[in-house]
């Protein structure tokens, strides 16, 4: 049963999942990963999905994002007051939908090793942007904003550090100005310093209006979200609204230290309640 711990006035829902079910069949074995799940994702939110391994977090992310189709139920996007139900789309229509509205960051960066950092970003941008010069400028600007300087932009992934690679992957995810950036454990393969860097980038993007849905299993990453959903056995069992990120609760120089500590305590309590 879904337990709403704290509800505040919500913004405009950009994605609505209704009675969402996803079942994987392997020969005679059926695994019900998502079970009649209902969810709204709001514009401008940094939504974090947490839960134990196998709870269906990634499946929910891929079903919401149009990477996969639900077995039952609907996923509806709302753009400019118009509803677009993507759950009934074919493969090509889904690809077009992802091109226009979704960006992705994965745990592994999966950068193309024969393309430079810039080209890895460009190759995704080319789908939507006809003006190559403008696209290249935007890609360079975005890469510079995540501290991939011009010299490094021409390097191949193998010549970059893991943190740099993941930052390139984040830029690749947002090059087409997606409505929602979907991140599946984006810091799962990074050390603590690089984790911090990537989370800062995601927070900055969110502060600039980018809606983000992120799957994570770390409190450190979850703290960046303003809305935390807890998933267990294919249903959202609880959610909490933390409000906007207030900075690092351990940083004594943080001007919002009190609020940051409060948010941390609130999240910790929430997760404890969920049996985390």
């Amino acid at each position: 049963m879904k337990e709403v711990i704290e509800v505040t006035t919500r913004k405009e829902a950009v994605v609505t999942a209704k009675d969402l079910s996803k079942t994987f069949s392997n020969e005679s074995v059926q695994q019900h990963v998502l079970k009649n799940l209902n969810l709204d994702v709001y514009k401008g939110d940094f939504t974090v999905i947490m839960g134990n391994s196998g709870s269906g977090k990634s499946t929910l992310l891929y079903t919401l994002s149009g990477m996969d189709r639900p077995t039952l139920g609907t996923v509806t996007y709302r753009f400019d007051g118009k509803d677009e139900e993507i759950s009934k789309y074919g493969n090509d229509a889904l690809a077009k939908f992802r091109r226009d509205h979704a960006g992705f960051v994965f745990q592994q960066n999966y950068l193309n090793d024969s393309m430079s950092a810039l080209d890895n970003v460009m190759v995704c941008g080319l789908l939507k942007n006809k003006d190559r010069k403008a696209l290249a400028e935007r890609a360079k600007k975005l890469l510079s904003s995540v501290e991939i300087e011009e010299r490094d932009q021409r390097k191949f992934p193998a010549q970059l550090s893991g943190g740099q690679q993941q930052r390139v992957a984040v830029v690749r995810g947002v090059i087409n100005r997606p409505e929602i950036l979907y991140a599946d454990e984006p810091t799962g393969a990074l050390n603590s310093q690089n984790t911090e860097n990537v989370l800062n980038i995601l927070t900055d993007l969110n502060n600039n209006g980018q809606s983000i849905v992120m799957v994570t299993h770390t409190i450190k990453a979850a703290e960046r979200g303003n809305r935390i959903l807890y998933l267990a056995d294919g249903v959202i069992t609880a959610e909490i609204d933390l409000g906007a990120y207030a900075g690092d609760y351990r940083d004594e120089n943080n001007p919002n230290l009190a609020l940051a500590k409060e948010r941390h305590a609130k999240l910790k309590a929430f997760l404890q309640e969920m049996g985390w």
Partner: protein
Amino acid sequence: MYKYFFIAWNNIKKQKGDMITFLLFTMLASFLIFHCASALLGMGKVMDSRFKDVNGAEVQIFGDDYEEEIAAWEAAFAESKDITDTEKTPFLRLYCSYRNTKDTEFEEYEFYVEPFTVNPKYMNLGFDAKDLGENDILVPMFLKSRFAVDDTMELKFNDTVYSFRVAGYTEDPYFSSSINITIYYCYMAPSVIDTIAANHPGLAGMGMVFRGKVSANALENGLKTANVEKAVTTAYHRLIAPYEEEHPERNYNNFTAVNWQMMRGGAQFLPQVVMAVVLLFAVIILVVAFVIIAYGVRDFIIRNMKNTGILEAAGYTTSTLRAALCVQIVAVAFFGSKLGIYAGLTL
């Protein structure tokens, strides 16, 4: 469109080895196909063009120079309603050994030799040979690989050897291929022709070549030059018959009759067979190249599943990615073919 080339170029970089192999195979195949196709399609045209250049005669008879035989051939040609004009030119028929002085061995062969000073109306040399001297000889173009200009060609009659400077080549469309007929058609100075004819009566003898020009209208209406040749030789046999009884010691059947359509087809037959075999070989190379690349691409797709997945997540459709792979293969095949054809044009 740019996105296809962007991905295709990246794929090419990733499949460097396979792509180089594919490029070389397509290059080789297109080189061979270009050569074979141009030979198959152009050989007839080249021969026709040359036939026109030398003002070719559609029927030629290489006979002896007995007076009654000459008269019989003239009458036989005159009887044919399809022949509009006739010309006769003396020639020397030789059976001798020859070699390039760079070679050690002599080879036996038959030669027909005409004087280069005579410029006949039909089947002329196609160029002015007035500057050539007594020691000069013009040999068929297909001997170019064995005789360079200024090489010395020796003709041996028993113990007597004549040396000639190869002064150039003839491009007689009738005798354009050594496969066509076992005769080398050459040109020498008339004085040398006379000397050889006088000194080696058993191996060299003067003859007369008769050339008949067939009506262009009749040819356009489908007349076969073989039929004209047959009509002329039939008439000749009838006209010479009385002399066979009068001079039983003379062989009036010692003539060679040729017609243009037969010689044109004969000259092309073997080269065309060879070209067809090479063409088949080239097609096999091309098929092998595509099989190799098909497996290469399949392997590439399997190895790069994750990169493909990223592109699909970004919005690339399967058909777009498939098209990019096609662009990649077509682009390499295009450059391979272009290089092959360029090589074909320059070599």
